[in-house]
């Protein structure tokens, strides 16, 4: 709790400060780049590329599509991601705290005038707000709002932008952040069928308890759950809470087919619990290359969707 509030406090000290270094466009406004952008976006208005068409509308020549405002100032593409000096420190705070997911949630732009060939755009960016912790479909996170002021080569204002991102802790180690928040509902994570025989098992998981079925008469442990004891035919049963300690009994790595709700390659583990029963689950912080049969594991729970928990296993802590 201290960590969280400390992160929030530290992040909020950035409010009102520059989010990053002021940045000047690498190129002046030019028609060739406009043409490429229009082709990519399906924009067909001729005033952006054709001098005559632009003049017919009262412009001196082709103008930049307003929505390209920020495009002119974008950092260069670097395979592997931005350089540290190109980053946004307030966002880095969240990355370091495990809020590694990022998704843009809002972009609002205002334009003061059309940009014309030869204009060179610059911006300054100010951290506007850091929200309290929010529970979202993607995971627990904070919304960070940054305001950009765009100016031309003479320092005159040309537009501004509000940019809001969600920095979140991914729900599952292998859960890829959907492009939008709504994507999470299009492909719901597969759910188990709840029967009279297994409801206790899934209810336990929802409360972060892995419950092993135990025969009330002979004490035999069994999984998956069922109504009858295979050892003594008793229909009376209770549960014992798994300690959470186990070892890797077998594993696979899924490549095909692929479901949108999972990230691939997807390791799936068969874990032998110290109580003796085995269960299938995913790994947490456990890439396929780290899997070795017999390795000690410990139970945790992952929230694959809000309110939907599944058991998972992470490498046992050394000395644990």
């Amino acid at each position, binding site marked *: 709790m201290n960590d969280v509030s400390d992160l929030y406090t530290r992040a909020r000290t950035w409010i009102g400060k520059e989010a990053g270094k002021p940045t000047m466009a690498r190129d002046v406004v030019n028609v060739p780049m406009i043409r490429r952008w229009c082709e990519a976006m399906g924009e067909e208005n001729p005033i952006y590329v054709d001098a005559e068409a632009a003049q017919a509308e009262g412009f001196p020549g082709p103008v930049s599509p307003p929505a390209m405002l920020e495009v002119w100032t974008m950092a260069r593409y670097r395979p592997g991601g931005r350089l540290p000096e190109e980053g946004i420190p307030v966002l880095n705070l969240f990355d370091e705290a495990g809020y590694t997911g990022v998704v843009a949630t809002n972009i609002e732009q205002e334009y003061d005038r059309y940009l014309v060939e030869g204009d060179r755009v610059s911006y300054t960016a100010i951290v506007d707000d850091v929200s309290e912790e929010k529970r979202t479909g993607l995971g627990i996170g904070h919304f960070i709002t940054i305001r950009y002021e765009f100016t031309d080569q003479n320092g005159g204002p040309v537009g501004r932008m509000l940019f809001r991102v969600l920095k979140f802790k991914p729900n599952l180690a292998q859960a890829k952040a959907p492009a939008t928040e709504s994507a999470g509902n299009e492909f719901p994570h597969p759910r188990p069928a709840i029967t009279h025989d*297994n409801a206790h098992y899934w209810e336990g998981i929802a409360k972060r308890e892995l419950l092993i079925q135990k025969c009330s008469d002979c004490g035999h442990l069994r999984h998956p759950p069922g109504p009858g004891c295979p050892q003594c035919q008793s229909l009376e049963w209770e549960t014992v809470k798994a300690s959470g300690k186990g070892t890797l*009994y*077998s594993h696979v*790595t899924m490549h095909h087919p692929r*479901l949108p709700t*999972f990230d691939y390659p*997807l390791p*799936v583990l068969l874990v032998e619990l110290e109580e003796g029963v085995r269960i*299938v689950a995913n790994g947490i912080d456990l890439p396929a290359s780290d899997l070795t049969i017999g390795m000690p594991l410990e139970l945790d729970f992952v929230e694959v969707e809000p309110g939907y928990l*599944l058991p998972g296993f992470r490498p046992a802590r050394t000395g644990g």
Partner: protein
Amino acid sequence: MNALSGKAAITGIGATEFSKNSGRSELRLAVEATLAALADAGIDPEEVDGLSTYTMDNNPEIELFRNIGGRDLKFFSRIHYGGGAACAPIMHAAMAVATGVAEVVVCYRAMNERSQYRFGAGFAPDATPTAEIAHYGYYVPFGLMSPASWVAMSARRYMHEYGVTSEDFGRIAVGFRDFAATNPNAWFYQQPITLEQHQASRWIVEPLHLLDCCQESDGAVAVVVTSAERARKLRQPPVIINAAAQGACDDQQMMTSYYRPDVARLSEMDLVANQLYAMAGLGPDDIQAAILYDHFSPFVLPQIEAFGFAPQGQAADFVREGNIARGGRLPVNTNGGQLGEAYIHGLNGVAEGVRLVRGQSVNQPGDCRNVVVTAGTGVPTSGLILTAG
């Protein structure tokens, strides 16, 4: 003497072409294969009084029956667990014939498993809270949702216990594709593979490469069962159902028997093999060839062990020595198997078993007096010993 052994025989086999898009209904495929099998047997369709198939087939017995011009259907059975039941209709037909319930039983399996639906596309159970659907809840939410993935989990454990490698699986695939390459009815006719190609094929579910996985196919196979006595008077050499058995045991699950003490064994196939040998009064040395179910290559190894062709954990050595390949001690899947010929859910393997006993396989290894045929592995399963008679 066992009450079933030797009482019935397979007297006709028929099939459609094997393809990736049949261009016609599954029912029509079933009708075509059935009529072909009856023609092979020299039996009039009006004489058919029994039908047997297995679950996952979509063709109602009564629809097939009326479309072949059947008159009086006295016996029909449909056996659970899909490909695991591939040999079981033969057993049920033999029981019906042996007890006088029916005289001519057609066993069939017809599917557009490639063009209309695909078992390999991943399983999304519906929400009906039945025991069968609840089973998938322990796997699918974790992404373990295809037959390949369910088998791969056991295969990895087998590798761990016995030091077996992906190349050992690959040798199986290479051998089956070698047989397919000389079988004009095989989808992979004239397309053998090398071990290097196997190793380079993409991962489906580690430790399974693409070339460890059976095809997805459209097609149909039908088999005619009647009494051994009558079969001896018909046009084809009689193929006696010397032994037939089903098996499920040892905390059996549907492809996920991960909770039994020894996951590296196919306990249900051990059970089938023991029954078959006891029923036929035969042992592994009496078997000249085998059809071993190959939806995925790794499970061929524990089947070799279940039937005693190699000791526990040594099947990979048996394969490496060339025993199951062309010219080997025990040629396996001489039609190319489901990796090479087609995936008709195992019934095309039964038909090849019949051809081997008749001496009619395109890759006939010599005289095959006794042939073992198995059905789907990792599931409740079944098997046959077919014998020249």
